[in-house]
């Protein structure tokens, strides 16, 4: 029986905060602005897309702290238990602007100023990690921050011209001390909170999670909050009882083996990024187009799968790689091919009390061909109109195995069975690809919506097979910002 604590404990800037009176739906942003009167952090959209609310959340790592920018608007307050939360008010110490802030002033990086605190926080996090960033790194760091005034040029200049040494930054200097403070607050307990019947539970460990879900089979599992956060801020849905999993370090493990990659369901996109890019180079660029930086620091692969969206970014590319999914209920586990998890629109093969524990992605066979494509209105931080993962295994000139999966083409992420069949056993050739393209019309009947029309979706789905063919011959490549 684990111990139960009835308050969350965290550090907010330089203050220790203990809160018992917390509803599952309380957001971090409202806590700053309404309860703490820290109004530097702004609400621009309340859905994690504009970045005006960006703050840093620090977690303990190897005796010191590691800080990541996140969206406070959809980050639920209960989830920052045993974290250090840093807002813009904490950067300028003693009235002296931090180097990133000074660079923003010197380069005329603010106009209306409303997005500025969020941009400063993202750039501060970038500077801590990369004191001398490339343009590309700056662009990637700012994917989750909208500015409507400046056209970004002066902000990019500021980001590339920050003076000073991050090693002397107070957050870096004080890391061990902050980690020790958090260690002292950590009692390895399960946390149970509630206000007005809105309950939040933070299990003590993964086994405890299994136990909690077994006794609360209708609970909302809350991982990265990049989707559940919107249920709260936009739909004003009741998510009680909410069982938080993002703090469970063992659920965030990314294990590399000869067999492949086993990714804990709580691993964020950012957690998994290095191993993914190394084992699956074709996913490196794709991975950086999932959400913005803040979303990649929050959102989890498990959540992206478990919520069953037909337009999630990871399922199509993971299905193409032959990913399997491990579900757990109590001490029972079952393993299934990822594509089998998606039954129908909004319907997944997950029983009450069951949770996604991990995914396993097999190491690709030598000589196999891979691609990942995402088509969206805007290149970065957009939800895909369609997404596509392709894996083709050749034996000599012939296609031995083909796995082609699409998102955005049907009510679930799905394999293109007819197109795959059209390729298997054929000589890898333009003619075979043309047959597969034709077969796609049997596989899918996409819809028209605000992200794309049906005609466009089908046309592009087919053209992506052409692109894959051309790339396999080295004849063309995807547009790349760096080529200018």
């Amino acid at each position, binding site marked *: 029986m684990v111990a139960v604590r009835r308050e969350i404990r965290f550090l907010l800037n330089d203050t220790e905060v203990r809160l018992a009176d917390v509803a599952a739906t309380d957001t971090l942003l409202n806590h700053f602005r309404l309860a703490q*009167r820290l109004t530097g*952090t702004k609400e621009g959209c309340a859905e994690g897309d504009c970045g005006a609310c960006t703050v840093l959340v620090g977690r303990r790592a190897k005796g010191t702290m590691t800080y990541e920018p996140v969206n406070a608007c959809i980050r639920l307050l209960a989830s920052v238990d045993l974290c250090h939360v840093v807002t813009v008010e904490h950067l300028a110490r003693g009235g002296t602007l931090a180097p990133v802030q000074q660079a923003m002033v010197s380069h005329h990086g603010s106009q209306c100023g409303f997005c500025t605190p969020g941009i400063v926080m993202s750039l501060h996090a970038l500077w801590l990690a990369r004191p001398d960033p490339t343009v590309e790194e700056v662009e990637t760091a700012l994917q989750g921050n909208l500015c409507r005034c400046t056209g970004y040029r002066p902000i990019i200049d500021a980001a590339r011209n920050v003076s000073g040494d991050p090693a002397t930054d107070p957050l870096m200097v004080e890391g061990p001390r902050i980690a020790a403070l958090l260690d002292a607050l950590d009692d390895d307990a399960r946390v149970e909170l509630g206000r007005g019947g809105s309950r939040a539970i933070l299990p003590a460990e993964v086994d405890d999670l299994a136990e909690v879900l077994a006794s609360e089979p209708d609970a909302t599992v809350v991982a990265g909050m990049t989707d559940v956060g919107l249920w709260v801020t936009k739909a004003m849905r009741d998510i009680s009882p909410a069982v938080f999993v993002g703090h469970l370090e063992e659920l965030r493990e990314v294990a590399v083996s000869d067999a492949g990659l086993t990714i804990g369901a709580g691993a964020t996109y950012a957690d998994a990024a290095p191993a993914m890019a190394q084992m699956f180079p074709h996913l490196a660029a794709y991975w950086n187009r999932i959400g913005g930086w803040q979303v990649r620091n929050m959102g989890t692969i498990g959540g992206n799968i478990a919520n069953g969206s037909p337009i999630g970014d990871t399922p199509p590319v993971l299905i193409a790689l032959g990913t399997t999914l491990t579900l757990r209920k109590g001490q029972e586990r079952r393993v299934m091919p990822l594509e089998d998890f998606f039954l129908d629109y909004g319907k997944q093969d997950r029983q009450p009390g069951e949770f996604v524990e991990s995914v396993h992605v097999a190491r690709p066979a030598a000589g196999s061909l891979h691609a990942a494509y995402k088509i969206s209105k805007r290149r970065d931080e957009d939800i895909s109109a369609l997404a596509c993962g392709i894996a083709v295994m050749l034996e000599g000139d012939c296609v031995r195995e083909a796995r082609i999966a699409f998102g955005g083409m049907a009510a679930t992420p799905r394999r293109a069975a007819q197109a795959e069949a059209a390729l298997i056993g054929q000589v890898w050739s333009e003619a075979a690809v043309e047959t597969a393209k034709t077969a796609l019309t049997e596989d899918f009947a996409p819809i028209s919506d605000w992200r794309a029309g049906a005609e466009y979706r089908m046309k592009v789905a087919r053209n992506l097979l052409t692109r894959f063919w051309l790339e396999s011959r080295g004849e063309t490549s995807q547009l790349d910002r760096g080529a200018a």
Partner: protein
Amino acid sequence: MMEGPAPTSEGRLHDPVAHDSAHKHVAGTAVYIDDMVEPTGTLHACLGLAERAHAEIVAMDLSAVAEAQGVVAVLTAADIPGANDVSPTGKNDDPVFAEGAVEFHGQPIFAVIGETREAARRAVSRAVIGYRDLPHVTDVSDALERVLPHVTEPLTLSRGDIAAALAAAPRRLDGRMRIGGQDHFYLEGQIAMAVPGEDDDVLVHSSTQHPSEVQHMVAHVLGVPSNAVTVEVRRMGGAFGGKETQGNLFAAVAAVAAKRLGRPVKIRPDRDDDMVATGKRHDFLVDYAVGYDDDGRIHAVDAQFAARCGFSADLSGPVTDRALFHADNAYYYPAVRLASRPMKTNTVSNTAFRGFGGPQGVIAAERIIAEIAHALGRDPLEIRKANFYGEPGRDVTPYHQTVEDNILPRLISELETSAGYHERRAEIVAENARGGVIRRGIALTPVKFGISFTATWYNQAGALVHVYRDGSVHLNHGGTEMGQGLFTKVAQVAADCFGIPLDRVKITATTTGKVPNTSATAASSGSDLNGMAAQDACEQIRRRLTAFAAEKWAVPEDEVVFEPGAVRVGAERIAFPDLIEAAYMARVHLSAAGFYKTPGIHWDRAAGKGKPFFYFAYGAAVSEVRIDTLTGEYIVDRVDILHDVGRSLNPAIDRGQVEGGFIQGMGWLTTEELWWDDAGRLRTHAPSTYKIPLASDVPRVFNVTLAEWSENPARTIRRSKAVGEPPLMLAASVLEALSMAAGSCGPHFPHLDPPATPEAVLMACERARGGP
């Protein structure tokens, strides 16, 4: 990327001074309305929005709303003490709360006032409203087909016998172009907080570009005289035209609730509600017939500009007028007929947005040029040059104003060279001819933008300047700060007038209590109008000081000179604070109200003739793109801009306007798409679905230069030029470059209509291959 100029501490006029709030912006200490300390007892309002595009309201049961936890009151049209109307043009067609019928999906019907914002938001969904659906029209082409009414009087500009000129022209083309709308996406949404006072008084903090109008509207809705209402705004978190009239409703709701309940009331809609319930840039459907010759010279243009105005007039009259005023862009149309069709639709009432209809006119003009160039197989730049305003006989606009200050030939010649336009274009044409999946495009487009409100009476401004005994200056004027740096520029003018450091000038919140009857900070006019009014106030004080000093120190008045750092009186240099203290002791009046009205402009709308613009601002841009012809995806690789701001008051701030305007325009023409479903619901109503540019959409090569040699021939504030709107239209070069790239796929004109989403680009490639 090129480095911008570093800010200076001196704060002199024409220096790249940092925005006055830059330090507060980065530190998070700049106070926006939602950051203000709320007075004790502040309540929060949330709007209940229509869930039909067009319907009678047959039943409305709000009892469950009123009974919800934390709800203090529910307001409907019946609770409005004065007029249920916030129409900015007196048309009485813009209800605060819909009554009897709803005319667009998202129209406010009621407001909940709660102890907290969350309580009010939660209660809204408990409303039970019965509708009887009526036919709805959201699309402008449907509105034309069904001959829906105009929301306001259309305008026609004409010259010559258009039918004869079209018939006589050697060549003719006919076309239709759709031009998408645009959401402002100011980062700070609409917000107002009303604090009730004694008698009829109310103080309203409103995020508005037009405090005077909010004041008048709140008074109108409350049924009280304007002198009971004070409206104040220190800064907005962006506006772009979206807070010219759209703040009226929110301020009115807060004020009505505050007066009724005797408690402060704040209203801050959620982003989705804001995007659904407030107006946007008008989308247009343009039908055109053009007569031209083998040299590409235009003989005649006959065009109709139909706009989706939404359910009410709002500013659609002047917006559609300005579309016609800019349908020539920089080109002379010998025979011309331009007609506006401000169509009523069952959508939110469209409103002002940076450029105010002008950009839609410019885009149509550039489409016409591109289509002529395609038909003749020529570089569109040659066609542009063949049609520029020029010598007498080719220098009169369709509204009969003579273009006297055209600097485009020099501007474009310099830009062609600095950007290497011809070499790059030749290389791109050759590369495209080799085929391949990736195609490239390049285009150079000009902008000529008329400066002044076309409603001549708006071209006035006031300022109030106090000098305190310690020599510090309090500056106030009718302009509002939305990030554009207006306060900084006007403070530079004031500091320069007195020869004092910029930090001795206190910039203060715009308030109707200090400067009355102001115009919106709009039409790019902020610095032109308020800079002049502030200068007038400062000069009045300076004249009094000069007369005083001349008398006290017995020197001629022309020997009293306000120099940087001190006032020279004869041979002596007297510190400004010392002069002020002496003046005070001698009982010199150290406060002045300044005023300015733009001279020499007039406009006869009925005749379609006049001189509506004081002057024109010019600019040009070269954009280069690559497209993927398999997916329609694209990248804007390089942009070169040369823009005319006259003699810049602050080159850093002006450059910020040019860059920001360009990127905003690029967003409008590329990824920003408004999408209504069959039920008339706007489905792109949040940043998750409505995509404005990101840092990674900015061209990696982005060369922006101000034309340093330009000086405004009109007598503006220190010979500067307006800069807010004109640069937005430089983004036409991106659309044209994309069009060129798509057009390289085949022999046909690609008809790439904005927004040029990847989908639109791919479809344009198909059209180029296969024809329309």
